[in-house]
């Protein structure tokens, strides 16, 4: 069990992916995360209130049930370890309640389009007046300043505007998206370190701060060397497919089985001769055209065909074992189910077995770390919309029954989605 952040309270106004990942990860080490939504505007990951057959929201067994917003798969996957309350922030009385929560919180985190918090009176200046030592983290697409500060994005937008797509694609073809909204989890993971660094300084000097994180700027950081190269005299192709700058051959090769593939990467001449031996193609070892890494890079296309010839009739898992035993970098291209069953990830306790009260059993993504002197907590399954209203407003803020019911009846504190 971890009690690292037992006394830490985080007010979480984030939605979709990046921000929810941040608070999920910190939540694994004991922080109290209070996720604030409103009944009229839930986290869009909860999906529609009445899903149509056209909805792209994912539900357990494809069945939305009676309260689909509580079991939408993307929602429950990244909102573990959180309390869920509902509050209408555009309402004066709703604001009074969040101001009370701000007073007793350590971190305020949001990822709206930049000007939304100004409109709600929840910008840093306003929040700081209520709690001067708060750590305020603003995660936005373009940052809190500049003419484009109100532009919106999802991870797939950021791959484009942050330049990642310009280096992602098959050799000399066109740019492609990752289909995995790659920048979102990156921003989520990165914000953990920034927010906790700010908290550490606060512990030392009592000083809060305003963190202005632009998701686009972090994405551009991931292609820094390409930004520099574009200003140099030497320009090399940016779209390299699966090949490597100094290893050859390197690629993804077809195996036996439906859409089964293996990755192989040859780091030096010795590994090349090992591979040739395993493939029973010893005649290639001394072939002049394939002698050095540079030669193999030049002839990668023919070499790929030779390797595919060999891999395409073999099982990817058997190939991985065979090649790894010979000390060659190789691995299966795992499908969704295979990642969940992966023996290495399971041995690192990456997946948690969760039994969600409404959504049932599933395997939960946890954290990418192993610490020697403490462990992460077990996953606390995602809560229903407004599940913790009573706990927070009555037990923590001390509202009496009259006031609580009044706010509930006037939809300031929400019940079901409006």
């Amino acid at each position, binding site marked *: 069990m971890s009690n690292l952040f037992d006394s830490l309270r985080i007010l979480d106004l984030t939605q979709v992916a990046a921000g929810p990942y941040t608070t999920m990860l910190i939540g694994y080490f004991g922080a109290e995360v209070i996720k604030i939504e409103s009944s009229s505007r839930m986290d869009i990951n909860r999906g529609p209130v009445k899903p149509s057959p056209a909805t792209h929201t994912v539900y357990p067994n494809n069945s939305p049930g009676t309260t689909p917003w509580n079991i939408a798969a993307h929602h429950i996957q990244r909102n573990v370890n959180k309390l869920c309350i509902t509050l209408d922030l555009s309402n004066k009385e709703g604001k009074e309640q969040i101001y009370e929560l701000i007073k007793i919180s350590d971190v305020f985190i949001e990822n709206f389009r930049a000007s939304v918090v100004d409109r709600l009176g929840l910008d840093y200046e306003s929040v700081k007046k209520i709690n001067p030592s708060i750590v305020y983290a603003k995660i936005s697409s373009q940052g809190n300043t*500049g003419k484009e500060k109100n*532009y919106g994005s999802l991870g797939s937008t950021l791959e484009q505007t942050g330049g990642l797509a310009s280096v*992602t694609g098959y050799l000399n073809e066109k*740019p492609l998206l990752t289909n995995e909204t790659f920048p979102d989890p990156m921003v989520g993971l990165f914000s953990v370190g920034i927010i906790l660094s700010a908290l550490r300084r606060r512990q030392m000097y009592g000083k809060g701060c305003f963190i202005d994180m632009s998701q686009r700027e972090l994405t551009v950081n991931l292609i820094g060397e390409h930004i520099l190269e574009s200003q140099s005299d*030497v320009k090399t192709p940016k779209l390299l497919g699966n090949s490597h700058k100094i290893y050859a051959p390197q690629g993804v090769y077809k195996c036996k089985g439906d859409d089964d593939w293996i990755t192989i990467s040859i780091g030096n001449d010795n590994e090349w001769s090992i591979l040739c031996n395993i493939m029973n193609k010893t005649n290639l070892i001394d072939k002049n055209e394939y002698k050095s890494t540079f030669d193999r890079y030049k002839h990668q296309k023919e070499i790929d065909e030779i390797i595919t010839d060999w891999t395409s009739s073999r099982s990817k898992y058997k190939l991985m074992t065979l090649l790894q035993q010979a000390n060659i970098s190789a691995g299966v291209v795992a499908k969704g189910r*295979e*990642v969940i069953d992966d023996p*290495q990830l399971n*041995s690192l306790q990456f997946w948690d077995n969760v039994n969600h009260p409404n959504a049932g059993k599933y395997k939960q993504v946890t954290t990418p770390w192993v610490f020697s002197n403490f462990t992460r907590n077990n996953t606390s399954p995602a809560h229903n919309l407004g599940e913790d209203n009573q706990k927070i407003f009555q037990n923590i803020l001390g509202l009496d029954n009259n006031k609580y019911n009044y706010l509930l009846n006037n939809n300031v504190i929400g019940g079901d989605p409006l």
Partner: protein
Amino acid sequence: MLDDLRVIDLSNHVSGSYTSKLLASLGAHVIKVEKPSIGDRSRNIGPFLFKSMYKESSLLFRYLNTGKNSITLDIHTISGQKIFQDLISIADIVIDDTNNELLESHVKVSNPSMILCSISDFGKSGPYSEFKGGDLINQGLSGLLQTMGLPSKEPLKVGGNAGEYAVGISMFSGIVISLFSRDSSSLGNNLVETSGIQTLALAQIHNSINSQFRGQDNIRRESSLLKAKNGWVSMGLAIGSRDDTWQNFCQILEMPELINDERFLSMELRRKNESELNQILKEWVLNQDKEEIYHKLQNISTIAGYVAEPEDLLQSNQLLEREYFNNQEGMLYPGIPFVIDDLRPTLDKAPLLGENNIDIYCNLLGYKLSDVLLLHQSGVV
């Protein structure tokens, strides 16, 4: 925020070097320890500044190592190990991405409160712990690779070194978490590990969700990017837009007949019928400038995007207005990706190999200059 910390950076890959760069951006003092005369592996990896490749012209190295000091030390010699222990005794964090087996014992002897950070492909224990990985292999095993690329082709990796930067980010946040454990106790044995497979399995979101909840694995799909006059765009009309967005969009298109077209009335429908919609938009898009489309569509509350090439980013008004880039010797470096209390930290240029030898060995560790010269002659420094 971390300016009370000294970091020894033994890394040789993008991941560890990016970790220590991020620590430096928060004020940590980073000493990069490199092999005498060879240096960090990335010093020999492109892109390069000049056509004739020489050690100090790797742009990858220059980008990853801003804000650090560099010393040379052969930690595999006996005298090198002694110096290394002196170094460890005054540091708070050691970062290793080369699976150095000696490290743990050194740290235990010289500095038990040290945070020892290990970056690997698959982790230190478990059935793959002896496996040989790398960015492509890690992306494959983590489930990221399978769904990327086109259905008619092989799976495709996330480009550049992004998969390795990801692991660097993971280590960075892991270190800051473990600082709280160190600061609140003196337990010792502060080992923090991250790996390529864990980090990238966290980055695959949709694949494992679909597989578990929908009961089917995700598959690769056709690209949704549309070709504009000078590059690629996405329209961003299918999610995250406002009620009046569609109407405004049809007016920009000058196609009012589409406003009430039943195929495109809601975001859900526009997502479902995306290929039909793209078919209609194709010609209009082809004649427009990619960045103009982006701005026009963002201004009506879409999440439109355009594929920015590095050259486009260097001219992005938004990035320039926020003073994102940092000018070093006439080159614009992507800056630190956060602003705290209106200040964006900047980092000094990357060190030459062994640039800070005298400063660190003599001034910080108290060695005599003559001793350092002797060590230099024997190849230890």
